[in-house]
């Protein structure tokens, strides 16, 4: 069997297995006999990805990710005034819509 993806065979967490949440948690292996690829799953990577997804969701719901994007897009640094500017614009758009029942 030859490992072609991230996460080494035998669930050895390789360096690139510890990448950020969007990475695939699959290990693709090639069977030497028939040459077909098989997908298996790295459990540590799955757990890490799940936690990463949850964290990313919390940051998205809390607008912290949107604020980071805002800073990146406008090439600005974080400051109290910048947060207030971002927050006012964001909240104005958000509360132009009602909350769902």
């Amino acid at each position, binding site marked *: 069997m030859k490992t072609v993806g991230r996460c080494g065979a035998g669930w050895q967490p390789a360096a690139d297995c510890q990448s950020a949440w969007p990475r695939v948690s699959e290990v693709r292996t090639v069977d030497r006999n028939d040459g077909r690829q098989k997908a298996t799953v790295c459990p540590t990577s799955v757990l890490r990805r799940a936690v990463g997804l949850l964290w990313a969701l919390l940051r998205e719901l809390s607008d912290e990710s949107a604020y980071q994007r805002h800073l990146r897009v406008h090439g600005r640094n974080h400051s109290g005034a910048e947060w207030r500017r971002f927050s006012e614009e964001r909240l104005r758009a958000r509360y132009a819509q*009602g*909350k769902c029942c």
Partner: protein
Amino acid sequence: MRLLGRVVWVLVAAGAAIGLGGIALLRGEHINSMWLVVAALCCYAVGYRFYAKFIAARVMALDDRRATPAERLRNGHDFEPTNRWIVLGHHFAAIAGPGPLVGPVLAAQFGYLPGTLWIIIGAVLGGAVQDFVILFASMRRDGKSLGQMAREEIGKLGGFTALAAVLIIMVILLAVVALVVVNALKGSPWGTFTIAATMPVALLMGLYLRYWRPGKVLETSVMGFVLVMLSIFAGRAVAQDAALAPAFTIGAMSLAIAIIVYGFLASSLPVWLLLAPRDYLSTFVKLGVIAMLALGIFFVRPELQLPAFTRFVDGTGPVFAGKVFPFCFITIACGAISGFHSLISSGTTPKLIAKETHACEVGYGSMVAESFVAIMAMVAACVLNPGVYFAVNSPAGVVGASPAAAVTTISSWGFPVTAPEMASLARNVGESSLFARTGGAPSLALGMAQIFAKSGGGQAMVGFWYHFAIMFEALFILTILDAGTRVGRFMLQDLLGHVSKPLGRTSWMPGVLLTSGLVVGAWGYFLVQGVRDPLGGINSLWPLFGIANQLLASIALCVATTILLKMHRRKFMWITCVPLAWLVTVTFTAAWQKIFSPIPAIGFLAQANKLEATLAVAGTAAATTRTVIFNARLDAAICGILLVMVAAILLDSLRIWTGILRGTRESPVMETPFVPSQLRPEEL
């Protein structure tokens, strides 16, 4: 499909069939809640894997090579390609409100079966399809709103009806959810203190986030959560304190006035100070509690105490009057099919979808997740002793004002309950009485408290869990009140801006105060009406809300059907037409009965006539009775307006569809042109 996959799906389908068969056929014994859970989860899985994927592939032909608005219009703010699971969580958090929690609890008066079947079947074949198709349509139109799509695809009448429906729903929704809070907090010093404490906590969070730790929303929310938890413990101390308890023991009318004043002030304050911090907190608490409830149900696997059907399917129910058809189907809206979701599906979400195929998970998947929340609420209501359920949810005007009268009436229905049993239960949760706590929230909190206490903490923690559940419900209901009043104000200012320019400016304080006052006055009027209603208010307001919500779903499905026809998918138009036909039937029947039924508990006009006759015989000038008569006629008029709106949008849509099918009408597809996606996999 590989053999193993086929075997798995056969097993899942068998699980769905056995689960549904079990809950439908098992009689004469208490069934375990796992039957409902397994039936629901298997049905959702089959629905998603086969029906949603069929719609995605064959009907909408989702194409990942096509750039979504999130990619084409990417600006780092509204438009941003986002990981599908994050969008799913975001969308679910946006659509999950009090509706899927309260509706099933109220509908449990018919027994667990009608509501459960409607929640599962309605979501899989109707609600999830509506959310998915509208999300798809908005995504192909640069994230346009439902109102804009209705105007463009059907015509000005469709657009106007959607706008008017949103306004009516908003007013009725705000009144009914405020009534739920009033009924949960009346005479409860513990609950009132806890909810009152959330306001200074939210203000502190707002100031902390703006001036002391800008941008640290998660940190602020954790701090707010800790403070709110402490306020629950402090609430117990307040309730037990002889000097403080009376100050927080407030009657229904005083609470209603307090909430109206709060609504006015909160919607006039800057968003960052109160609304936004509490919204962040309530979103996290909501997701956490839903997850906790799911884990609790899996862990405890409680038995359902309510039967599959109760005698009240005949329309004589104490919680609300009306037969199982059509009232079960308008009482449970958000857990099965909800028009309000179409506003969210055509709001923020389409601007975050990175790939077209993600719309399937997000649109369909979020709705079935919400449907599962409704199933959990049904379980929480049905684990209660039926006598307790009816004692809590029946208004004093139906079962009698004294505990002795109430337990006699409820026991005579075949649901034995005693006054000492109710007193002991009230004592356990730190309340003076649990009789006539209509609105669904207290009985849901009781059921949740039982499940949580069995999961950990034991009976000693029942009081804490009960008030934790009340806090959780009230927290996001108050957020809805604040945000809804604000939206109503914006809509009104937009309208009044045509009459007087300053009134249209959201920065002009007199205009803000005037329009806030008008919106608060509108929902406040219905709230006071609900408090005064001898039948408890929920009996008249919840059906009105359900009808209005389903009207909006009908508009959304009309828009969806029109778009499918314009896409030359006429052989698949049944996917939206079948739920539409059902909704129109349900809405028409319910609205007609609410206006014209000769039974006073159901028909508004019959109720007004009965009260008028009483007034004439008694000869006393009872001002309250005259107000109730006026309110009943007002409710009948609103129901009539909703009926006319359903008919108008339907006839207008039928005119368009006939033209398209006959080939006599041009039917340009309003989609944005195809642009190939350049998004790299690592950007997702």
